[in-house]
């Protein structure tokens, strides 16, 4: 009879996640017991406090990297620290936006357009369940990129996904669309996680292990042929690529981005990408690295298709959120170039890019929340005409963020693009660099088009206006702007920090 040995979990290393989960539970409890009046403030403060606390904890354990925790289920290495910190920072900024309850329905169960709905809105109550959901999602996002076995990965995937599915459907305005977004996101997400799981099964079948290290060992010293491995990689990739919105697994992106409440879109677009790419990087860099000959061509093709597709389709979009969605698809393609690079530079570049892109994305969506008419947000691009005249400050910030997306020098986007493409080139993948820069050129078109609309077109008198943002939203907008510029002009400290920190343990 084997003796059960109590597992040692290294709680301090897991503390960031545990703090977030704990905060989530507290907010759930608050949800049940606190009066409606003080709930919004309490929930918001707990949420922010939790995130900040977790961030502090991440900072504290930064030197303890290159360790595993939770019986080897998670790795606390440089990238883990960086990615967790990134997720948390993005989450803080995202929560600033989420705090504007204006975006969320009060009672999700009321019928759209019904008397009840109106009454609920008039009651002035606020939906506070988003806070626990956000925290759960954050916990999942923090776990996803550090998980080192397929089980934890799968669980983390679901932990991050389920709250997002739910939150996508909580919009106050255009609720039918919002619910539709939730449904689509959910169905497709579940569909893709089935692929993920099936792939995991074959990887397990191939290696006899569910840990990434075990799979790596099996690849390195495998005796049989690698059919199972490849089936596994392929199906696992479907699940992962779905999350980042790579073509052809991208189709949910525009619809969900458009339908979801904008703060959620912002948070999701920024943080999910970090988490998912974090996981992809870890899996492909540590586990599949020796099988790169098998997956690299496939991923290259996908990356190319993704870049081009995202850029080209974004051109014809008439809705700002959809346009940003396609832009995120294109960026997923660029980020895949970093995965394909499969070198230290690629890892560093990807992490930098994820941070820079996440921040800029949050800022961009934050600006989107400000443009409204009497019926809520205005996302029709034509109605953004003349924004620069109405609100030069906001428009300038938005333009800057768009230029960062386009990769214009002196913005973070340029440094990101440069570093990721140079890493890809270094790995010998020249084609992707060429396609990358060409699709950047295409992509520039639609960013510039928005700038033209904002600055060079006369405003129509259609009630569109830029509301005065709340302090928190303002904080998000200004800090994203500042970070974007700062990382564009003085990226050195940050890049140094990444390159000295980011090494995967296996």
């Amino acid at each position, binding site marked *: 009879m084997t003796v059960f040995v109590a597992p040692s979990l290294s709680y301090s290393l897991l503390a960031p996640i545990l703090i977030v989960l704990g905060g989530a539970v507290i907010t759930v409890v608050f949800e049940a017991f606190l009066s409606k009046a003080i709930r919004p403030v309490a929930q918001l403060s707990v949420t922010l406090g939790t995130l900040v606390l977790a961030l502090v904890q991440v900072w504290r354990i930064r030197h303890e990297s290159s360790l595993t925790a939770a019986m080897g289920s998670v790795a606390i290495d440089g990238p883990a620290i960086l990615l967790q910190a990134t997720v948390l920072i993005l989450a803080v900024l995202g929560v600033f936006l989420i705090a504007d309850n204006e975006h969320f329905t009060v009672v999700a169960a009321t019928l759209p357009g019904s008397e009840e709905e109106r009454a609920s809105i008039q009651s002035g109550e606020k939906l506070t369940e988003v806070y626990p959901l956000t925290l759960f999602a954050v916990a999942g996002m923090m776990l996803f990129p550090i998980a080192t076995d397929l089980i934890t990965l799968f669980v983390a995937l*679901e932990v991050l996904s389920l709250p997002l*599915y739910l939150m996508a459907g909580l919009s106050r305005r255009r609720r039918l*669309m919002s*619910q*539709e977004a939730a449904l689509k996101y959910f169905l497709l997400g579940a569909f893709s996680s089935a692929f993920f*799981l*099936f792939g995991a099964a074959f990887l397990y079948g191939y290696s006899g292990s569910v840990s990434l290290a075990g799979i790596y060992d099996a690849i390195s010293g495998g005796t049989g042929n690698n059919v199972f491995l490849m089936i596994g990689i392929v199906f696992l990739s479907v699940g992962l690529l779905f999350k980042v919105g790579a073509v052809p697994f991208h189709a949910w992106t525009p619809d969900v981005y458009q339908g979801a409440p904008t703060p959620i879109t912002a948070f999701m677009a920024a943080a999910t990408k970090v988490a998912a790419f974090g996981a992809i990087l870890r899996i492909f860099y540590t586990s599949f690295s020796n099988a790169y000959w098998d997956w690299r061509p496939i991923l290259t093709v996908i990356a190319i298709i993704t870049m081009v597709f995202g850029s080209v389709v974004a051109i014809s979009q008439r809705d700002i959120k959809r346009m940003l969605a396609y832009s995120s698809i294109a960026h997923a393609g660029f980020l895949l170039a970093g995965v394909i690079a499969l070198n230290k530079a690629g890892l560093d570049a990807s992490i930098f890019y994820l941070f820079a892109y996440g921040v800029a994305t949050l800022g961009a969506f934050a600006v989107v929340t400000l443009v409204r008419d009497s019926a809520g947000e205005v996302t029709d691009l034509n109605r953004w005409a003349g924004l620069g005249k109405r609100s030069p400050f906001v428009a300038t910030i938005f333009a800057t963020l768009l230029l960062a997306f386009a990769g214009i020098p002196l913005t973070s986007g340029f440094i990101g693009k440069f570093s990721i493409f140079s890493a890809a080139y270094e790995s010998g993948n020249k084609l992707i660099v060429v396609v990358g820069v060409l699709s950047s050129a295409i992509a520039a078109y639609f960013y510039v088009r928005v700038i033209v609309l904002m600055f060079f077109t006369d405003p129509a008198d259609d009630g569109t206006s830029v509301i005065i943002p709340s302090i928190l939203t303002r904080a998000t907008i200004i800090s994203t702007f500042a970070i974007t510029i700062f990382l564009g002009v003085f990226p050195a400290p940050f890049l140094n920090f990444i390159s000295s920190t980011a090494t995967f343990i296996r």
Partner: protein
Amino acid sequence: MNAANYLYVSALLFSIGAIGVVVRRNAIVVFMCIELMLNASNLAFVTFARINGNLDGQVIAFFTMVVAACEVVVGLAIIVTIYRSRRSASVDDASLLKR
């Protein structure tokens, strides 16, 4: 007979589930098809556990069930919401978001 035969069954079930997602319109049935795919994966896990001689596969299959249960709750909640708003559970009716 060969233990690998279970894998063929698993593959077939997975394929059937996947196609079901594409061809069925009722959101609930679509979701059931996804469940079928998860089950197929589980069968593969269990089979591989036996082939590889360790229980990790069974553990992950167990997790799958738990996760699937949670997913079902969330998923059905979403479907119900949609149904209440639209009086329809057809996924084709939810097509406001396009292009």
